[in-house]
């Protein structure tokens, strides 16, 4: 069930227009990387380390090279020579400063570390040969987990760095001890969020084709960000940027994994250039699970000081993130954001934090839908923990501390200002009302007292920074809106839609602005040859940045069309309006001209154009995001915990959210639902677990459990629409569901277990962990 009040909807913007992408995707006509086949194309298979940490003694490729159909077996000796940086354009090299090479030489750092590449006439032959590559490794002690990494005298993942702590950022404000000394309550707890991974349905993949004659490298990719992929492929291969072309058609999910081009795809690009051939590599599921990127893996200690009424006096946050073995863009890099955004939706007079990232002998940490969402997870779990500790209901606690409309604009202790376009108080009230909080509390008591059943309710409230305008090149998008002589329109964008429906939403905006039918608009993205440089799709930014670029470019086209129409109709341009594909004089609908006729004149009867006007009808506009755009939401859910089996069943799930002006409510709901499902999966099912020696234990879908439709309740989504201060009034919505859901589910389970005085602080909450908690308390 979804309730939507579309507010001031336009003819297209604000309507649940059917997705243009769906007919092809739902009939199996989508084009993914593996659908791409080139003449003479070869197939690659990586040989990966099967130990977490060790010195490579030798790599014997002779037997593999002798296999019929094998074209090359490459190691770092061949492929690492003269490589440019493999880091993304947006990089924090100072923090990481660890050089990454295509194939690891010297010391392997995690199970899955690529050490050789077999290139053969088929993937099957490549796999046969890969089995014959003999990698001889002297095992070293593996560093797995926070405690091992931080231990005095621990083995070092990167010995040249001198420590496993690769990033260490304290932001300590004076006065914390005094605040604590005067506080009625000081509550402290440590929360662990376990390691997970993105699991796109389409794994990573590339077909890289190098033509030695022209010097051109063409890569077909599954990417969120084609222009970034071109830049990095150019750097790593040395092929100049204008000779690299990246094409992405449909992308079967990414969730952050395909925002930056990872090492393995770059390696294939380098191999294609090295061999002068076309090479396909489609990552298999085991590789995707163990060697693409992992995410989450945070340990956060929160100390709160509260007055006698439960009001916040201050907070201290100590965040450690597990960055894995190699830098991916940044070294982990989310930890400072956990501190910086910890304030969330509450009036918090004081905040200090200490953020660290540690290297470990595990798969590298990368972005996953809400990369720094531990700020919400830790804060919202701590809110419930602290409320319980002082004997206050968590909803009541939130009501007392939430930033209300009257408090806006509100500046956080980290000097960030929430303008008056947020609505945390309204979403909190709406979510709690819809879940029928008070009635559920009564039912919870009854079920426990008369039947011993464990019901629980959880809330999670957050404010999300979207579309970061401070982070080049993620801050801008360029739209080229081109009207053809027939009046049809093509829109070129640098975005990389991977499920967001941008071919629909961007067309909605353009059709709305031009006053033409949406069927007359096509959105072209994902090809560097035809689209302007852009930021790609990520960071909850496409509605804000992409749509506003489309809006501005469309407005320029409309202005020009009006100028032409004014000349043709002998009217004043500022008297004109356009709808249903017809430009008319305001108040005199009979006086008009078809938009298509204007387009025809613009190209084919240029003598009729106003004096001095350039022929053609197109415009290109770049929109730069404001420094930050705030979205907010509150999640509420109810659960039942089976005390015999430890299974958690979600009874109801409610979201009240404010993403500003919606372009397409159905797509908004889809984004929220998808994020919530990932959040639920993260808490209850997904766990990328390692043994103490650094062996990954969830290497197939038998053990890395994703939620299926059978495990997911109906997600009840409600909207509050407060426009953001940008031309379209949009905020981000891609990541929010995944940010809010984990703490919500966790809090509901913790609430149920609290009936038995059982306290939990760590995710995940599979039956194993729930039973551990119950059994340890003697239940």
């Amino acid at each position: 069930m979804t309730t939507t009040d579309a507010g001031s909807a336009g003819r297209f913007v604000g309507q649940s227009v059917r997705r243009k992408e769906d007919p092809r995707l739902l009939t199996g006509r989508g084009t993914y990387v593996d659908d791409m086949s080139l003449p003479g194309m070869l197939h690659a298979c990586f040989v990966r380390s099967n130990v977490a940490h060790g010195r490579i003694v030798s790599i014997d490729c002779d037997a593999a090279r002798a296999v019929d159909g094998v074209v090359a077996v490459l190691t770092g000796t061949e492929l690492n020579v003269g490589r440019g940086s493999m880091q993304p354009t947006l990089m924090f090299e100072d923090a990481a400063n660890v050089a990454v090479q295509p194939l690891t030489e010297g010391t392997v750092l995690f199970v899955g570390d690529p050490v050789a590449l077999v290139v053969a006439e088929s993937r099957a032959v490549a796999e046969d040969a890969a089995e014959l590559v003999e990698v001889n490794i002297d095992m070293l002690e593996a560093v797995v987990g926070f405690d091992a990494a931080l231990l005095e005298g621990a083995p070092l993942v990167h010995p040249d760095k001198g420590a496993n702590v690769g990033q260490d950022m304290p932001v300590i404000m004076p006065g914390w001890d005094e605040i604590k000394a005067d506080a009625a309550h000081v509550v402290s707890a440590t929360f662990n969020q376990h390691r997970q991974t993105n699991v796109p349905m389409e794994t990573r993949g590339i077909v890289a084709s190098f033509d030695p004659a022209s010097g051109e490298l063409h890569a077909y990719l599954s990417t969120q960000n084609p222009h970034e992929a071109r830049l990095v492929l150019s750097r790593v291969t040395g092929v100049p940027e204008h000779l690299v072309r990246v094409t992405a058609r449909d992308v079967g999910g990414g969730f952050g994994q395909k925002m930056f081009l990872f090492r393995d795809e770059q390696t294939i690009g380098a191999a294609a250039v090295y061999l002068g051939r076309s090479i396909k590599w489609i990552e298999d599921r085991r590789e995707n699970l163990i060697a693409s990127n992992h995410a989450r893996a945070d340990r956060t200690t929160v100390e709160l000081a509260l007055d006698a009424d439960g009001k916040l006096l201050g907070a201290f946050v100590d965040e450690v993130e597990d960055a894995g073995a190699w830098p991916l863009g940044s070294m982990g890099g989310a930890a400072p954001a956990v501190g910086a955004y910890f304030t969330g939706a509450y009036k918090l007079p004081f905040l200090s934090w200490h953020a660290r990232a540690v290297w470990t002998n595990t798969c590298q940490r990368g972005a996953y839908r809400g990369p720094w969402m531990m700020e919400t997870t830790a804060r919202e779990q701590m809110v419930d923990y602290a409320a319980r500790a002082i004997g206050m209901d968590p909803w009541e606690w939130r009501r007392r501390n939430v930033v209300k409309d009257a408090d806006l604009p509100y500046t956080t202790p980290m000097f960030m200002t929430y303008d008056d376009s947020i609505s945390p108080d309204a979403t909190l009230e709406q979510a709690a009302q819809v879940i029928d909080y008070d009635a559920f509390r009564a039912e919870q008591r009854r079920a426990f007292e008369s039947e011993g059943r464990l019901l629980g309710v959880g809330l999670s409230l957050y404010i999300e920074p979207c579309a970061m305008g401070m982070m080049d090149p993620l801050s801008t998008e360029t739209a080229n809106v081109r009207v053809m002589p027939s009046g049809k329109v093509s829109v070129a964008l640098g975005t990389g839609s991977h499920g967001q429906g941008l071919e629909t939403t961007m067309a909605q905006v353009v059709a709305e602005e031009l006053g033409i039918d949406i069927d007359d608009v096509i959105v072209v993205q994902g090809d560097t040859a035809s689209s302007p440089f852009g930021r790609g799709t990520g960071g909850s930014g496409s509605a804000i940045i992409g749509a506003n670029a489309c809006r501005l470019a469309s407005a320029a086209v409309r202005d020009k069309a009006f100028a032409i129409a004014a000349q043709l109709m002998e009217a004043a341009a500022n008297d004109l309006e356009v709808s249903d594909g017809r430009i008319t004089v305001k108040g005199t609908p009979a006086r008009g001209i078809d938009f298509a006729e204007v387009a025809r004149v613009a190209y084919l009867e240029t003598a009729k154009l106003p004096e001095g006007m350039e022929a053609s009808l197109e415009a290109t506009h770049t929109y730069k995001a404001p420094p930050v755009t705030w979205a907010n939401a509150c999640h509420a859910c109810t659960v039942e915990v089976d005390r015999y089996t430890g299974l958690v069943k979600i009874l109801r799930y409610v979201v009240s959210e404010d993403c500003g002006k919606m372009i397409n409510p159905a797509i908004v709901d889809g984004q929220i639902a998808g994020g919530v499902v990932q959040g639920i999966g993260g808490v209850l099912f997904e766990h990328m677990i390692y043994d103490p020696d650094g062996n990954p234990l969830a290497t197939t879908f038998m053990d890395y459990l994703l939620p299926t439709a059978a495990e997911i309740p109906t997600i009840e989504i409600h909207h509050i629409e407060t426009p953001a201060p940008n031309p379209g009034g949009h905020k981000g919505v891609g990541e929010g569901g995944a940010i809010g859901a984990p703490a919500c589910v966790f809090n509901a389970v913790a609430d149920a277990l609290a009936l038995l005085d059982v306290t939990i602080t760590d995710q995940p909450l599979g039956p194993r962990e729930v039973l551990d908690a119950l059994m340890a308390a003697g239940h």
Partner: protein
Amino acid sequence: MKPGPFEYHAPHTVADVTALLAEHGDECKPLAGGQSLVPMLALRLTGFPHLVDLNRVDGLSGVERSNGTLVIGAITRQRVLERDPQIAEAVPLLARAAPLIGHFQIRNRGTVGGSLAHADPASELPAVALALGATFDVAGPNGTRSIAAADFFTGTWSTALEPDEIVTAVSFPVRGERTGSAIHEMARRHGDFAIAGAVANMSLDAAGRVSAAAISLFGVASTPVRATGAEAALVGAAPADINTLEIGRLALADQEPTDDIHATGPQRARIAAHVTGIVVARALEEAGR
């Protein structure tokens, strides 16, 4: 995830199958529905230079009822168990167990004989076969023999079959009078292999007391196991006097399940005891109807 190279054989007779198995020894494996074997080959967890496909072999598929026995051909799809009204009538436990096996797509291909011969300790059908006292018809190069379910399962993924033998059919006794049966399991998600599960088959005498009790557990040991202590405690008891929680605990008294990432051994035992209580109660309830 491509299997290593293998030679594919598709014989039409049982004799040809067993001859091929005998010829190639441990370089050879029968292929039934492929729902366990093919993933293992693709992950290169195992590899065989020769695969002998059973899907085209005459006489391995079908269901037949005669003289109080239901005979199911080895290559009969698991999906048939839940759809064939004859099976639901004769051995309702099979119809109740089948929907718990994976997802319907898997059951459309997966076979009854494959599930039994694969002998995963967390599988449903082996536990059902053990509780009901099924008999396996086996063929080898030197002829046929039968193996009782109690002797068939010898360990995780291992059975009393010789490498050159196949299961051709399985026989289940048709449900008797005043008999009830139930299967229940705890799995993390719909369609997952069970963390632990239990099967019960209960008969009552004319006076309404338990005359025969069979309980088998799956997921708690390297093979499905009978809970003989609990069964003995049930026989002769009046259902009203039976404490199913106690029976559940008794059933697990001799078991020491092992750990995996989804549950510790003691948790498995707790879960198995819980589901045992549930199946005993349900089976008794049905028997008394």
